[in-house]
């Protein structure tokens, strides 16, 4: 089996974080070797023939061989058998990938331009960070707020589109501690390549503690909760909060109570209602120099408490 392990070692696949990843890599190793042999036969045969039968004189006699039924049958039949074999092997693994385990730990994952939002059963929400316990079946229920996204964890050989208007699901059972990349692999616009998250596999005790801490955070003071929400909703990817630097949208640093010039050159004072409008109806007031239609509305996604928390947080940005 040394050649087989060699093929796998040269396959450049990322760390294997699950049992399924190992199975996928075995199949891939087999395919690599078969493909290499097939290419060696075809390309090697080609090179051998063109060299051996290279033109020597302009009037070389050539053989007249129009076909050979037996040979043609053999080289149709052998590929067919190999193709059906790898199909069946693939089917076997795919069946495991797509059969959801019972009693799995369920976590909701929502894709949106351009972040992943994770929500645990106890209501704790995080953004671009998914923490899961080791050796536990985890089922992710995926959905999308806007366009198609795709949830890809290379180390788990796991990928599933998040489709707006329906739920899709994947499951995994991580057997290795550590941090793994989450990529978005379905093109989703401006910051598609920035939609990167982290999947942390931790011990079961650490996981319980993580969830408890999350619970406690929900009882924080208003501005603190606003700060947390600001991170969860990924507001910071467009609005800076600790300096006047402009990201995609206007900065919120030391803005409360000051005057802002809008794109129709009118002026408005930034107060509680202005901030509320900007979150629920972002195209109503556009700050001069910024394009319309970039910020999505948060109507229906923020309740009254959350709106107040965010306003309170922005108020205190000094």
């Amino acid at each position: 089996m040394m050649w087989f392990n060699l093929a796998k070692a040269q396959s450049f696949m990322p760390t294997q974080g699950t049992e399924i990843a190992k199975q996928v890599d075995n199949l891939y190793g087999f395919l690599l070797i078969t493909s290499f042999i097939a290419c060696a036969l075809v390309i090697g045969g080609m090179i051998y023939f063109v060299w051996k039968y290279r033109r020597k004189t302009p009037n070389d006699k050539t053989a007249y061989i129009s076909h050979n039924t037996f040979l043609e049958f053999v080289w149709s039949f052998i590929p067919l058998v190999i193709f059906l074999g790898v199909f069946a092997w693939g089917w076997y693994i795919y069946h495991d990938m797509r059969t959801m385990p019972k009693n799995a730990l369920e976590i909701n994952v929502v894709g949106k331009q351009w972040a992943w939002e994770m929500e645990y059963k106890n209501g704790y929400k995080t953004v671009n960070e998914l923490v899961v316990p080791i050796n536990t079946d985890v089922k992710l229920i995926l959905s999308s707020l806007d366009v198609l996204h795709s949830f890809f964890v290379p180390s788990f050989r796991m990928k599933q589109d998040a489709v707006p208007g329906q739920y899709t699901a994947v499951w995994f059972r991580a057997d290795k501690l550590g941090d793994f990349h989450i990529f978005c692999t379905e093109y989703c616009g401006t910051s598609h390549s920035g939609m990167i998250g982290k999947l942390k596999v931790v011990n079961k005790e650490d996981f319980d503690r993580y969830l408890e801490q999350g619970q406690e955070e929900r009882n924080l003071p208003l501005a603190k909760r606003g700060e947390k929400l600001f991170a969860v909703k990924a507001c910071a990817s467009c609005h800076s909060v600790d300096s006047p630097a402009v990201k995609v949208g206007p900065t919120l640093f030391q803005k409360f109570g000051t005057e802002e010039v809008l794109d129709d050159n009118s002026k408005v004072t930034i107060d509680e209602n202005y901030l509320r409008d900007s979150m629920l109806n972002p195209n109503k007031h556009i700050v001069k120099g910024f394009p319309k239609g970039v910020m999505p509305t948060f109507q229906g996604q923020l309740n009254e408490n959350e709106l107040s928390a965010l306003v309170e947080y922005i108020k205190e940005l000094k």
Partner: protein
Amino acid sequence: MATKSAHHGDNYINFEKGLWSWLTTVDHKRIGLMYMATVMFFFLIGGIMALLLRLELFAPNAAANVGNVLKNGDVYNQVLTYHGAIMVFMVIVPGIPAILGNFFLPLHIGAKDVAFPKINLASWYCFMAGAALAIATFFFKKIDTGWTFYTPYSIRTGTATVLMVLGAFVMGMSSVLTGLNFIVTVHKLRAPGMTMHRMPLFVWALYSTAILQLLATPVLAITLLLLAAEKLFGVGIFDPALGGDPVLFQHFFWFYSHPAVYIMIIPAMGVVSELITTFSKKVIFGYTAIAYSSLGIAAVSFFVWGHHMFVSGQSATAGIIFSFLTMLVGVPTAIKMFNWVATLYKGSVSFDSPMLFALGFLFLFAIGGVTGIMLAVLPIDVHFHDTYFVVAHFHYVMVGGTLMALMGGFYYWFPKMFGKMFNESIARLSFVFIFIGFNVTFFPQFILGAMGMPRRYFDYIPAYENLNKISTIGSWLILTGFLMGLWVIVQGLRNGPKAPLNPWGSKTLEWQTASPPPHDNFAVEPIVTAGPYEYR
């Protein structure tokens, strides 16, 4: 036209003079050349876009030095979309059928022209009108959907989706008209004695392609119109916010676009069949198998579209069925490969530049083929889907396959088309640069894909840097190769020595007439008494 020929030139180029005579010509050879000029222009634009993309990916943005050429993600996404859309709809789909097919299909079967010469001209105007609409988006809001126009992004983006899909729609019309023309021409205009089984394999390939063009393209047309209707009038078909289903769009889109990849590759296989037999001076091995495997591929290609959608949310059962059917396409494709290699056996193989491209095709297509099988295996595709592995795979088949064959076919038929020879040494050198550059550019992308780098990424994590650098350097080698090819063409056209009737010693009919051919193709209608590859 016969009455005119008395006081006109002796070949199709000097038969009539002036720009107007070209714009109103119904001569299939002239229309082929018009396609050639326009497709080459679009290839230049699409190529520049590709070079920009590679330049941007030279380094991750955090380490931006040489890399940072495109301003931001939006600009990158637009360049990526134009590269894809131009190369697919304006270069590879029309490439071989519209240029070489138009020019040589009638010559191959001993006909004076295609069945409907005026429709042939109309198809060129359709192509130009569609291309104009597509290019017009550049001056409005541009477009950033990717060439696949996936919903609901394409509906929600602020860019000019409608204009672009209308352009693709009109270009699709051109494709349908060409397909229709070719089918009727093959059935009705064969010279006496030219039975179906005496047709050159290039004709069989064009015939299979024409069937696909005729049957699949209307589905794309309908899909794109629905998309435009949704975007313009808010009819809810694909956007879930309007009660539509975004996955439905993918089914519709790939129902066309999967057969379309065979529209792109089957003609290339036809060209390669011609080249291999001519330059090994030997009858093709397994004529019938190659001819019917083209039809076989065309037929099965209608039932494999779901293999683009294994992780889209379609049912697991659908995934299994599509994986199975995709394996079946592999068989006729493998048969062709074996037949070409077997043709070389006991031949008299020369290494003229067209043959180098044909051998390059076999090399690259073998790699493109085995990686295609990998992608058809369900759990492997789950990992590779939408990563650089897929990018590498389709560039191996579409660029390594189709463009290699187009270049090879172009050098092969250049003496016949223009009556002049070209500089053989530079032509061979152009092959060396394109072939090596191609592998340097795209082979590292297989590894990047295995490592997990997603496609359509403006920026990437540092682990992917080295391979991206190699890939970018490869793109400059390809550029060098194509610039040499351009020089060969221009130099050949201006100063090439006069070409003989049949410089390569081919047996097919087009080599029996003058170089360049007269307006009516043949001075006397040929009578066919044997197959196309009688090298005895």
